[in-house]
């Protein structure tokens, strides 16, 4: 399967020298704004039919009856897939082959584990017929009482949180630290369930050809999806061809292939025709992951000098009744502030929801809003400016491990953002500032942090007889700009101009690029590309320097340097040869080499690696009506090398808006009796609209980090949320004097707190 893409290049940005760091415009932008970018659900192979999932409206129990006949009688319905009538699977979807093989509902039984779970699939000639067929199934249930919310049952200590992190971390003596404190904060914060709500719903178009499978589906991890599907259907991974050139957002929910996507593959197998299955918006609230609710208790002790004596962060989180994902909310307290004693701990409760999953800044987002609020409370208790308080407690080394940071320009972030915002002179006491219209004005800040991760990814580089280069890697563009940034890195890796290379991506037929998550994709694939480029140029150098007819003869790989499609001798720049000349003389059609990007364990054991930032927020609050409006957001971020400042700014804007959303808007409301989500739509699940987004500014602070990876990239996809959510919440306190600890901040808390 090949991807035909007519990517555009902005000629203004074609240049010699490094392409990295250039504000290249999106290569896929024109395709997207003209509707030519083909997303998964835009595909219509010949003979295709439609599958629609029937979902459970109970959260726990069994399906006792389905009116399959009624559905089948509906004109256009081809078949109804149920637990009793479905293709055999080679593997139990509840088997836990590895920690990332999340259990999924593939009609293996009549059991219902959460509301919105798939209980049947109707396949029909039209979407309308399949939809009505699903409605006609009129399921009957044996209902059990749903377990809902953070108090639904016994708590337990999870075996691990996030990706294999310990549930509890102790450093120093918390009790001693608290006992020694002259001021103590003990506060409990709650954050709600949130859903990824990518604009593009999970969708799949599946075509079987014998035991080969062709899939169009949005994926943040094609190779992992291939492995999972291969296991379930008992075919080799190489038989599965996934096409995922564009995603309409993923935010973690498309990191792993989900149950509904696999049901589409099963449906295609059942009816022997190509099948399209697209989730309705409401169906995305269940089987494709979410951010679980949290209750976080933070205790902080400080001395008379305003230095932390203890920081304790305990988080209670929910997970599903049948699988294990644990939002590492308390881990946010590991790295940010120096304290002689730090303890983080997690407790979990099993509830009747779909399994929670990584959602943009998993752990950091939930943990950060609690931690940054608590730090604000501590600063206030000490009578110290929140920025000064954070600077006093600045972590020079990672507090829980004692490791030095590979780089940390957080001080510059604080300074630059504070200056730009105009923080100086902020009154310590809340409710001191009003604007000319009488609205209460508040200023708050938060520190942003996100680990600089690396996964493993591969790339293949080719230099052709005409001197042009090709770089291939099955990377994932979720809208973040991978097509563009990786093209820039590819050009540099091949020492060619942008118009001399092709960057191929977005299908599983290309080298495995690993997962696009953890803000690590550019770093991981960038490193793979960098290494592949170096390797292919080494092959060219080998051809040239071992050939006496070449002006480079005898120089050796180390003795030549690649620049603008030529190899030059290091000791005599005038002696050079073009790629095309080298290949022509050698009679070779092309040279090819591979590269891998992965974390360097030695560097990781030596250094703590994190991106940092500082966010300042201004809000205005109506003094009687309690309506809150963010009016300014300024963030400065230090995230290693910036490959493309335009894309990076967009990522950081998006993250900061998400933080604003976290503080003021976003919440899935669940009925405590039924376990059903009551606002499973974009009208009532509120995210900020344009009118809510204030003027924003993003500053990037240069950081040269030789340790994180060869390109010094730290990743910017998630950090924008952290810090921002707390900054907005702290600004609300500063405006009103009301400390709201349940998020999102609701109007009633402010109205009732403000008095008449």
């Amino acid at each position, binding site marked *: 399967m090949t991807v035909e893409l007519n990517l555009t290049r902005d000629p203004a940005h074609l240049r010699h020298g490094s392409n990295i760091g250039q504000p290249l415009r999106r290569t896929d932008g024109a395709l997207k704004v003209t509707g030519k970018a083909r997303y998964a659900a835009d595909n219509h192979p010949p003979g295709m039919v439609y599958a629609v999932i029937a979902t459970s*409206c*109970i959260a726990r129990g069994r399906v006792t009856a389905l009116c399959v006949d009624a559905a089948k009688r509906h*004109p256009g319905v081809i078949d109804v897939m149920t637990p009793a009538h479905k293709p055999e699977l080679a593997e139990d979807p509840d088997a836990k082959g590895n920690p990332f093989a999340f259990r999924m509902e593939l009609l293996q039984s009549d059991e219902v584990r959460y509301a919105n779970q798939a209980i049947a699939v109707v396949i029909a000639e039209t979407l*309308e017929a399949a*939809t*009505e067929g699903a*409605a006609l199934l009129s399921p009957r249930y044996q209902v059990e009482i749903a377990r809902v919310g953070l108090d639904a049952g016994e708590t337990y200590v999870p075996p691990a949180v996030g990706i294999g992190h310990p549930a509890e971390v102790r450093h120093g003596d918390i009790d001693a630290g608290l006992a020694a404190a002259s001021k103590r904060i003990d506060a409990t914060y709650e954050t709600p369930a949130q859903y990824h709500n990518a604009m593009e719903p999970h969708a799949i178009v599946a075509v079987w050809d014998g035991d080969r499978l062709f899939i169009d589906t949005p994926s943040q991890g094609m190779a992992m999806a291939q492995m999972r599907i291969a296991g379930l259907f008992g075919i080799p991974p190489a038989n599965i061809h996934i096409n995922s050139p564009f995603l309409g957002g993923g935010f973690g929910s498309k990191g792993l292939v989900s149950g509904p996507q696999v049901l589409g593959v099963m449906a295609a197998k059942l009816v022997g025709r190509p099948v399209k299955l697209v989730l309705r918006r*409401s169906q995305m609230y269940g089987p494709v992951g979410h951010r679980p609710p949290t209750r976080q208790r933070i205790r902080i002790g400080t001395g008379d000098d305003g230095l932390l004596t203890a920081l304790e962060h305990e988080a209670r989180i929910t997970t599903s009744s049948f699988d294990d994902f644990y939002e590492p909310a308390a881990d946010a307290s590991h790295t940010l502030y120096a304290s002689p004693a730090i303890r983080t701990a997690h407790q979990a409760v099993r509830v009747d929801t779909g399994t929670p999953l990584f959602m943009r800044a998993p752990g950091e987002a939930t943990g950060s809003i609690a931690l940054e609020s608590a730090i604000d409370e501590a600063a206030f208790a000490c009578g110290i400016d929140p920025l000064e308080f954070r600077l006093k407690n600045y972590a020079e080394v990672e507090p829980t491990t004692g490791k030095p940071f590979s780089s940390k320009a957080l001080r510059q972030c604080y300074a630059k953002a504070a200056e730009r915002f105009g923080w100086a002179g902020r009154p310590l006491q809340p409710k001191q500032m009003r*604007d000319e*219209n009488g*609205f209460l004005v508040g200023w708050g800040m938060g520190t942003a942090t996100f680990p600089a991760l690396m996964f493993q990814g591969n790339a293949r580089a080719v230099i052709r007889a005409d001197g042009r280069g090709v770089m291939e890697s099955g990377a994932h563009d979720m809208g973040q700009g991978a097509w563009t940034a990786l093209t820039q890195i590819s050009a540099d890796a091949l020492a060619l101009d942008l118009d001399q290379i092709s960057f191929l991506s977005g299908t599983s037929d290309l080298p495995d690029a690993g997962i696009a998550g953890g803000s690590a994709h550019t770093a991981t694939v960038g490193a793979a590309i960098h290494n592949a480029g170096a390797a292919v140029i080494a092959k060219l150098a080998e051809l040239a320097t071992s050939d006496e007819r070449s002006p480079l003869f005898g120089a050796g790989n180390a003795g030549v340097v690649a620049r603008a499609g030529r190899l030059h001798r290091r000791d005599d720049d005038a002696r050079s040869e073009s790629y095309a000349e080298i290949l022509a003389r050698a009679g070779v059609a092309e040279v090819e080499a591979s590269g891998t990007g992965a974390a360097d364990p030695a560097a990781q054991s030596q250094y703590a690696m994190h991106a940092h930032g500082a966010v300042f927020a201004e809000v*205005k609050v*109506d003094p*009687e*009506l*309690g*309506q809150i*409006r963010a009016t300014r957001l300024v963030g400065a971020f230090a995230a290693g090398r910036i490959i493309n400042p335009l894309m990076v700014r967009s990522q950081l804007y998006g993250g900061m808006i998400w933080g604003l959303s976290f503080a*003021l*808007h976003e919440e899935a*409301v*669940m*009925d*405590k*009796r*039924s376990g*059903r989500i*009551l*606002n499973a739509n974009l*009208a*009532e699940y*509120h995210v*900020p*609209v*344009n*009118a*809510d987004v204030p003027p924003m500014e993003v500053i990037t602070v240069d950081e040269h980090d030789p340790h994180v990876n060869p390109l010094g990239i730290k990743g910017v996809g998630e950090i924008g949320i952290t810090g921002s959510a707390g900054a907005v919440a702290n600004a609300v306190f500063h405006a009103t004097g009301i400390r709201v600890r349940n998020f999102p901040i*609701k*109007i*009633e808390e402010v*109205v*009732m707190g403000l008095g*008449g």
Partner: protein
Amino acid sequence: MMNFDYVRPASVADAIAEASEKGATYLASGTNLLDLMKGGVSRPSRLVDVTRLPGLDRIEHLADGGLRIGALVRNADLAHDADFARNYPAIAEALLSGASAQLRNAATVGGNLMQRTRCAYFYDAGSACNRRWPGAGCDALKGENRLHAVLGWSEGCIATHPSDFCVPLVGLDAVVEIEGKGGRRELPLEALHRLPGETPERETALERGDLIVALRLPTEAKNFAGHSRYIKVRERTSYAFAVVSAAAALRIEDGKIREARLALGGVAAKPWRARGAEQVLAGAAPDAAVYREAARAALADAKPSGDNAFKIELAQRIVVRALTLAAAGTPDRIPALPGSPFSSVAGA
């Protein structure tokens, strides 16, 4: 989606005939109805598309100084009609505070009046709801009800009417013109929506087949143009229904409030006319004390139907704000953030 008949009658008489059969319902722009059908909440067997009916898309100035607005006039077209916005600024502001630009471009006057409640349990086909299924019970009563009614509710239903448009309309004595099997009749808008009582399923005074053909504003409605505001508190700045809203319209002469009109949104199953408060205001000098008294009068009968006691307090403060801003004078232009408490902020 279920199969249904779709008819597009050429005349009002045909439309009424088509819609008089059981299971038939009018379709205007469908911004509410189609969502309900997709969610399985409404399952009509016949849609009678009224959008091509002739003559219902006009705004007419009547000889007596009143205004007649056809039921098919789009929400956006009405709000952006310069005459209309000048004469009835609070109505225009209310319209523009609702939904989104795309929805307002589509939504019709008739559809806006007849839109159904946004009670989440009404939308959730799995929940018990007396409106959807008389006698089934009301799952909102002990459920997530922080945004439900504080006035005029019954144990049978605590839902609110979601329209912004209707709030100033009811304050300004709008009249609804209806054509039905029995011919033409008219009804004060205040009598169109019903309080739930024992029969929450009977949401309006319309009978099967009744078609709203027009909305009329009486001559006097213009008298308030100089002192009118609509204020809407919501959970985000745009594209959200009111938590509570208020429309205030004053006729101020010689430093005295000669006549006041006040209505509240988001508090009851109908747009809520606060006549008691109007009486408090009539003849008084416009000042904060009298606004507070009016606010108390407006909410005197309010009681929480769940976790929503705050709405009673908030509603009173919104009344005070709406009155204060109305007394200060209608702004020259409809604010960039219509209905928002922040609408007075320059550049907001």
